[in-house]
């Protein structure tokens, strides 16, 4: 492929990585949602670009799904949940923003360290994408565990999954990518649904008396 195509793909992937760092940095839920929507849009662009480059038009489906579902529908839904459940807007982070960012950088370094030595046969594009995707995945996971709030955790999970889609589309001619991306969207829909129906916050951590008694009774009944 030409270097231009390569550079654009590289740019988009890098953009996603930057955006997940930004996600990690956010301390307000709504902003988090917006950044996530942005990341989803960049993802759809990246996928579309891959579809164009690889001439695999079926990947467009994935791109569209990413755009519609994760770019607009889910952030909207989450917005409503935030209002409905009256989750306070500030995110309690487990560890401060600074350490989180440092850890994030460390993870990026680790992922590059892991992927770079790979030589045999794998195209440079795939390798770059892979490094970024791995970084995005790890950052998403990091976000899941540094946030105390179910909504933000779901956001983390979704950005993780963005990384997956990125990697999958980066893999040239991989079968079933579309189907799997669809499956993932359904999965996420489930999770959002779950939060919504079961009113799930992080049970044991929220300072909420009802939750506390529940917690005690759980100890007695479960254990």
């Amino acid at each position, binding site marked *: 492929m030409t270097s231009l195509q390569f550079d654009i793909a590289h740019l988009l992937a890098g953009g996603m990585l930057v955006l997940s760092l930004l996600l990690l940095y956010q301390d307000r839920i709504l902003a988090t949602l917006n950044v996530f929507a942005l990341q989803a849009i960049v993802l759809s662009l990246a996928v579309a670009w891959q579809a164009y480059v690889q001439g695999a038009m079926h990947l467009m489906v994935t791109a569209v799904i990413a755009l519609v579902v994760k770019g607009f529908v889910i952030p909207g839904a989450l917005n409503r949940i935030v209002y409905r459940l009256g989750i306070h807007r500030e995110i309690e982070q487990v560890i401060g923003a600074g350490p989180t960012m440092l850890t994030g950088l460390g993870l990026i370094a680790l992922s590059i360290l892991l992927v770079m030595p*790979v030589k045999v*046969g*794998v195209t440079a594009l*795939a390798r770059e994408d892979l490094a970024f995707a791995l970084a995005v*995945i790890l950052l998403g996971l990091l976000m899941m565990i540094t946030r105390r709030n179910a909504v933000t955790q779901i956001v983390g999970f979704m950005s993780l999954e963005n*990384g997956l889609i990125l990697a999958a589309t980066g893999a040239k*001619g991989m079968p079933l990518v579309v189907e799997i991306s669809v499956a993932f969207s359904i999965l996420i829909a489930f999770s959002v649904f779950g939060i919504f129906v079961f009113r799930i916050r992080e049970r044991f951590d929220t300072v909420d008396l009802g939750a506390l008694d*529940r917690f005690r009774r759980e100890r007695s009944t479960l254990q």
Partner: protein
Amino acid sequence: MMSPVLFLLLIPVAATLLLGFIAHYRIGALLNVLASGATLATAIALLFTERVRTDVFIIDDFNIYLVILTAFVGFTTSIFSATYIGHELEVGKLTPVFLRFYHALYQAMMAAMNLALVSNNVGLLWVGVEVATLSTVMMVGVYRTPEAIEAAWKYFILGSVGIALAFFGTILIYLVAQPVIGEGLPAMAWDMLLRNGARFDAKLLSLAFVFLLVGYGTKIGLAPFHAWLPDAHAEGPTPISAVLSGLLLNVALYALLRFKMVLATHPDTLNVGMIMISLGLISLVFSGFMLYRRRDIKRLFAYSSIEHMGIMTFAFGMGGPLANFAGLLHMTMHSLVKPAIFFAVGHIAQVKGTQRISQIRGLSVTHPVLAVGLALGVIAIAGLPPFGMFLSEFMLVSSSFARQPLLALILVAGLLIAFGALMLRMQDVLFGEPSGPAGGVKASYIPLFVHLTLALMAGLWLPEPMVRWFRAVAAQLG
């Protein structure tokens, strides 16, 4: 081509769709049993048809007996579930509405597991495992108690993360295979991977395995990825606990082993064995200790499942003909014995109206048959002769002590710790002054004792074909 393999998938799928519309409990249960029986029949038919190998499906020594095992346990569990769920309906813990889901999901799960087992494609395998997981998530939450929902949610979140990581591993596998094999399905086919494994990029292969290990390890329930397992077992309906322990964990382990085979073909990949050994030992010792403070009887046996998964992982990590043989045998025995225990426990919980161990005493006085069933089950699961697990643990411990004395000592310590806990709880439940209601049991003991008989038989005499399969697979596992 209308090979039995297709039926393995079609029958449960059809049953799923059909059961989705049947609200009546008896018909639903009957249909469930029939469908499972038919699946079992097809699975057995596999033995007599020639081995299939396409880009999508494959039948070889490894999965053929797992398919049969899965179908068999699925069948017996469906019988058990018929009586069990009947009782739950009478008590009112379940409503027919949810029951419709229950049966449909049961078949869906069977279909997914069969898919995972017979697929020749790492992607399909992944899909199968995930669908099975999701369907069990729904079933775990079926009681709608806060604890159940809690458990289901925990299971769901951890499971999804596992899904994601496993998927990334799968992508990596494709990436590593694609340059060598070429694009498309073949690059994801087991046999192709096995054949060309030696030419893959070792680094990327190892990276892939790490993600697959974490991803599928979550499904296997290895510590520290085990968190969902005890809750899911304890809060879900007992048939599901049985199937989870007996089958789903196996399927996940099966997937992991397939990938280990691929790695085994490459000389200078990461030392996977050591990682698996350490994970196995951690799970074994950890769950061994966790067994002591258990107050809920189903949770107790959930932890014992973690323990046994740890033993198997240790065995496969140890490698070598004997240890691998032991691991495979242990796998089989565990999915025979653990469901049997859950059958017994389910009935016990129903007759005593509680799962609290402290409220169940002197069972051998009030319900002798159940007591004998539970006793035999625990004796078998604790690795005492003449049951099959003794055979596998015998081979595992003795062979690994000659090779890795220290690791074997840790293994033995773990086994002993777990044994102590299991025996303690079993004596509490079975003996002493009886407590709780002494009412009769409305249950079919057939599944329970069929399982136990098979485990007993395996302990004394393994049929020739099984030995052949095991040895072949053991050789492949390296």
